[in-house]
């Protein structure tokens, strides 16, 4: 530590920064009124700090830096130095901390990391060439800080292990085409709030409603299809008054056309709706032969004429809003696929082609072929070369299966062992023996390849990456950069959008949101899906076009389809494919104008300025507010309360000083977005109250409306970019960031700033950081006081 101290003193001279006495004076004048040794406000004591040993108090000083950069401290209302002084202090602190980090890098340590269920399903797809639905096979994973790939949260439970066992059985049965698969029954249901008076993606053009799914048919054989129509709560089938035709297609080819409805049906249905429904449904069941493998199944209704509409009856966008209603379009309730009946063989499926790279002569060279097949698959699945002990285990299971039912059964059993064991399910990084405890070391090439593919693709490394790593070439920075660029332009990099961005921006929350149908009767599943897709496409454009990350705040374009365009009031957009449109309304630009974010930060019947403020603080500014005190009563929802504007209803937040400390930070941010209603539409009035979207931010800036808020964020765009970078780095290494990671984060940003903070620069910076390429070797002694403390500190996220 003395060595570091000497370096520090030298460093301050080197940078030509203000000498320690000036910093002390600033802190003493403005900070220790609250953050004194005695008061220790928010647990922070800045009195009597040793400014020549800043690095030793890094935890506190990093907190100070964060608050200073965000403009949150000193709080508005108390004496504040000018922005220049604040920046000077923050810069001096950062430089001091960063210099120390160069001599004592701490890359942190991610503990042993099991695959989450998304990664599990992706890995199965890449190893066995079989698409599986992770949410059917495995329970949901716990998340931390919004991400479900954080190692310490990915715990083990008996339920999970049972699922791994049963999942491995099902997966291998399907992959091999086991004749013993039995009759499999699958039920597919469109969400009940899906409007089915329009074309649904994946179904044939010229049809309305229904759904399209990819179903896996395990064997060649006969399968039964049972489509069921939606009924009202009392059992009456929707849309019976007209004649309709339901079309069922497999891979786009019609396999059945079913007619129903018309005067005949309605006459019979009215007195006995449930009995008629059962009778009709029995007539819709049919069986056809299907070849094994994945096929797109679409069930939808033929569009009879362009004039076909139920709009006279339907007042709202959402077609199935009232469970008592029976008029209008027929809706698909579900389709049940069962089979195979009378199976005759496993057929020729993508999975079988992947697995059976050799075909033995029966009884002659089965064992060598089994060895080849299983070692290839294990290598991919384990992300490392397979050793003799691995093969011994696998071949034991091969023999077991072989003895029961022949060569293919043997392979099936072997594969089952591969995907149910810890070698597949855990990402293991081994500390080298010759490194001292609490010392950082470079991880191996194979370990690096794994980190890279799980980061960019959420799956196992492909052949190219694996081979480079196995040959020890991945260390080479040029090779590494080439691989990153290659992987970014691969379709598998969509994982960055659907896993990273969707979790960072909390888009997954939209799945569970059901805005009150009384207040938002137009909100349907079609809109819900479109909102998510819009934001995903925006993020995707930043990656694909290698834009500056700041463009996420300022983008003057977005992506819409017909449903979304109607929601936003954009004219002239038809069809359900997404296309880029220019944004002419200044208020709509960037993330703050995205309907997805505006909806998920609202509650069922109204907006929530507090939720919006909180979302921005956490996800864009990296300064989450502390949790609320217990027993806060809910906002009054009576009619008197509803007559007021949202702002008036929340005056108690400001009036009570106990509440105000946090709410004067959160509420103004949310109020500036009040022109967006609970589903993201622009409005000038909230009920009868005119909307006033102006307020004073936590640093004293006056902001009016969404544009004002955006400018406020842009004025501190480095804070935004740093927040995103921290989250991306957390996602990349699978552990929360803490104060020890901040020097590395700042380095990434310094480099990326030379390139206008382009996405690829930030990404490369992450890949090149010690966090990503190195690991801290742990102290050997279990539960020694200092080791435990550092573990806890590593677990606790910043603030």
């Amino acid at each position, binding site marked *: 530590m003395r060595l570091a101290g000497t370096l520090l003193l030298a460093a301050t001279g080197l940078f030509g920064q203000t000498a320690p006495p000036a910093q002390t004076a600033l802190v003493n004048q403005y900070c220790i009124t609250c953050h004194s040794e005695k008061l220790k406000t928010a647990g922070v004591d800045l009195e009597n700090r040793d400014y020549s040993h800043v690095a030793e108090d890094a935890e506190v000083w990093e907190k100070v830096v964060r608050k200073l950069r965000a403009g949150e401290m000193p709080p508005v209302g108390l004496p504040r130095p000018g922005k220049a002084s604040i920046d000077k202090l923050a810069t001096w602190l950062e430089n001091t901390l960063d210099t120390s980090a160069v001599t004592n890098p701490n890359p942190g340590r991610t*503990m*042993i990391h099991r695959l989450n269920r998304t990664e599990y399903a992706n890995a199965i797809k890449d190893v066995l060439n079989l698409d599986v639905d992770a*949410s*059917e*096979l495995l*329970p949901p994973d716990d998340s931390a800080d919004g991400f479900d790939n954080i190692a310490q949260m990915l*715990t*083990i*439970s*008996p*339920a*999970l*292990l*049972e*699922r791994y*066992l*049963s999942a*491995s*059985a*099902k997966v291998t*049965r399907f992959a091999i085409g086991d004749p*013993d*698969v039995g009759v*499999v*029954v699958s*039920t597919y*249901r469109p969400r*009940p*709030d899906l409007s089915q008076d329009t074309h649904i993606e994946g179904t044939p053009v010229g049809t309305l409603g229904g759904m399209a799914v990819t179903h896996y048919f395990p064997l060649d054989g006969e399968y039964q299809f049972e489509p069921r129509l939606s009924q009202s*709560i*009392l*059992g009456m089938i929707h849309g019976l008054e007209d004649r309709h035709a339901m079309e069922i297609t497999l891979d786009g080819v019609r396999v059945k056309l079913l007619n129903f409805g018309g005067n005949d049906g309605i006459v019979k249905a009215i007195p*006995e709706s*449930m*009995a008629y429904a059962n009778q009709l449904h029995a007539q819709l069941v049919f069986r056809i032969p299907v070849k094994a493998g994945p096929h797109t199944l679409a069930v939808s209704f033929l569009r009879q004429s362009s004039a076909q509409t139920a709009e006279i009856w339907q007042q709202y966008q959402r077609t*199935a809003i*009232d*469970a*008592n209603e029976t008029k209008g379009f027929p809706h698909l*309730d579900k389709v049940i696929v069962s089979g195979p009946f009378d199976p005759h063989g496993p057929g020729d499926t993508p999975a079988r082609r992947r697995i059976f790279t050799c075909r033995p002569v029966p009884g002659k060279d089965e064992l060598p072929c089994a060895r080849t097949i299983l070692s290839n698959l294990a290598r991919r699945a384990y992300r490392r070369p397979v050793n003799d002990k691995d093969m011994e*285990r696998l071949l*034991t*299971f091969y023999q*077991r299966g072989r003895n029961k039912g022949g060569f293919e059964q043997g392979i099936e059993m072997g594969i*089952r062992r591969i995907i*149910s*064991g*810890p*070698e597949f399910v855990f990402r*293991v990084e*081994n*500390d080298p023996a010759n490194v001292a405890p609490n010392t950082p070391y470079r991880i191996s090439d194979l370990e690096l390849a794994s980190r890279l593919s799980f980061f960019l693709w959420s799956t196992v490394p492909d052949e190219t990456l694996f081979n480079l790593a196995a040959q020890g070439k991945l260390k080479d920075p040029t090779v590494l950069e080439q691989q990153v660029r290659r992987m970014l332009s691969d379709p598998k990099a969509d994982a960055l959008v659907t896993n990273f961005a969707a979790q960072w921006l909390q888009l997954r929350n939209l799945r569970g949101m059901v*805005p*009150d149908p009384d207040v938002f009767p137009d909100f349907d599943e079609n809109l819900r899906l479109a909102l998510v897709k819009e934001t995903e496409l925006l993020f995707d454009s930043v990656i694909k076009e290698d834009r500056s990350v700041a463009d996420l705040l300022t983008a003057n374009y977005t992506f819409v389809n017909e449903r979304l365009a109607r929601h936003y009031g954009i004219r002239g957009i038809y069809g359900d494919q997404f296309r880029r449109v220019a944004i002419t309304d200044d208020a709509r630009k960037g993330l703050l104008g995205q309907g997805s974010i505006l909806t998920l930060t609202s509650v*069922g019947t109204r907006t929530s300025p507090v939720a919006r403020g909180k979302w921005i603080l956490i996800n864009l500014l990296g300064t989450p507010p502390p949790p609320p005190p217990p027993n806060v009563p809910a906002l009054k929802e009576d009619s008197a309360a509803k007559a007021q504007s949202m702002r008036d209803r929340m005056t108690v937040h400001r009036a009570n000083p106990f509440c105000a400390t946090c709410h004067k930070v959160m509420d103004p941010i949310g109020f500036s977005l009040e022109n967006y209603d609970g589903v993201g539409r622009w409005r000038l009035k909230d009920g009868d109250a005119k909307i006033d979207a102006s307020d004073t931010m936590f640093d004293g800036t006056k902001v009016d409306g969404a544009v004002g808020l955006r400018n406020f964020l842009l004025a501190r765009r480095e804070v935004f970019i740093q927040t995103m970078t921290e989250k991306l780095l957390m996602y990349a290494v699978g552990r929360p960031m803490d104060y020890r990671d901040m020097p590395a984060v700042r380095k990434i940003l310094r480099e990326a700033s030379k390139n206008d903070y382009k996405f690829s620069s930030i990404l490369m910076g992450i890949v090149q950081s010690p966090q990503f390429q190195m690991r801290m070797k742990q*102290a*050997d*002694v279990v*539960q020694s006081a200092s*080791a435990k403390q550092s573990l806890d500190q590593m677990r606790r996220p910043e603030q």
Partner: protein
Amino acid sequence: MIVTKKHLPRRTFLRGLAGTAVALPLLDSMIPALTAQTKTAAKPQFRAAFIYTPHGVILDQWVPKTTGTDYEMTPILKPIESFRNRFIILSNLAENKAKQAGSGHASSSATWLSAAVTKDTQGEDVQAGTTIDQMIARKIGQDTPIPSLELGIEDVSNMIGICDATSSCAYLNTMSWSTPTTPLPAEINPKVVFERMFGDGSSAAKRFERLQDDRSLLDDITGSARDLQKNLSAQDKTRITDYLDNLREIERRIAQVEKRNTDQQLSVPNAPIDIPETYEDHVGLMFDLQVVAFQADITRVSTFMMSRELNNRTYPYIGVPEQHHSISHHQYDPPKMAQHQKINTYHVQLYSKFLTKMQETKDGDGSLLDHSMVLYGSGMGDGNVHSHDPISVLLGGGAIGQIKGGRHIQNPKGTSMGNLLLPMLEMAGIQQDKIGDSTGKISLS
């Protein structure tokens, strides 16, 4: 080898259940485990079952004219006449709060076991009260593989939005609430229930074979996990130790499932392929599964909605071609009331088969019925006007000597259903002074 008996956190089960809420292809085998039973003559295991029928009954054909032990069995209850001494008829109860929500259908079943009030909403923010089956499950069900079973016959989980005037469809789907804001979905597919109880495979032989495979996999996996652990740091070692502990736990469970599949005493029904064609078969199978689940101690608490509120099922095979909901609005027209009564009686007849099986199944020194508390009835009384006051229910079983049957207890007018729920909780060993809008406790002694 020390067998560590792990208490499973409740949420791991709920996650397992989440995956089986929809009829899936090859389903998860939540391999249950028998716990160390102290099933001696002195300490039998308490069970609780709650069975619901909708739309009320023709009350004067259900409630006897006289009270006490000498009452004359009424026409609707005739099918369970032989069980006279095994149940108490309680009349003049009321779901006082139920009429405040929607048209009164959804709140009938949603508050039957909580005496709470349902929140008027069509959105996701549904709210009712924690039901007593869940309170009991928390007390006696944490040792069993499945803390409680929620079963139903009709499925409206595909409806979001307005179902019952101003009430969300979520209220109609279940009668079991684990918290005031968490309705538990009812499973309608007996195949799903069966696989949860017994594992994957259509025959006992197949299931056995699969369990053997599972065992040998677990064995080998344990070996390689140990190998893996050798080279790990202390922190990572702990995670693998966790993994190894959990492996041991499911090995133990698999052994128990094997035993259950080969136990001669258990009459395991054949694995159902799907939902049975007829209503009678469907209901019968669900009742059978409850009996087996109790017998094998897979669960000790179950709720079963024989039919849900607001359904329009017809019963032509008993001479009722009219739809159930419609005919419950009989407008006091005698022929229509007679039709409604036929449905009421038919349901009791199906219920009698459950009672018979419970009676015939040995449990320690008595029968399952001796050791169970069974509630049967509807949340409505006069269905024609959606009346929840008065309603009448049957409290049956022995509850390990705590229920003295063969009586009709008539309560003061408007007695809250909660006043019955409280002594029921007491029988399960839970002391509580208030639930929902209860005003006291009915004396059942």
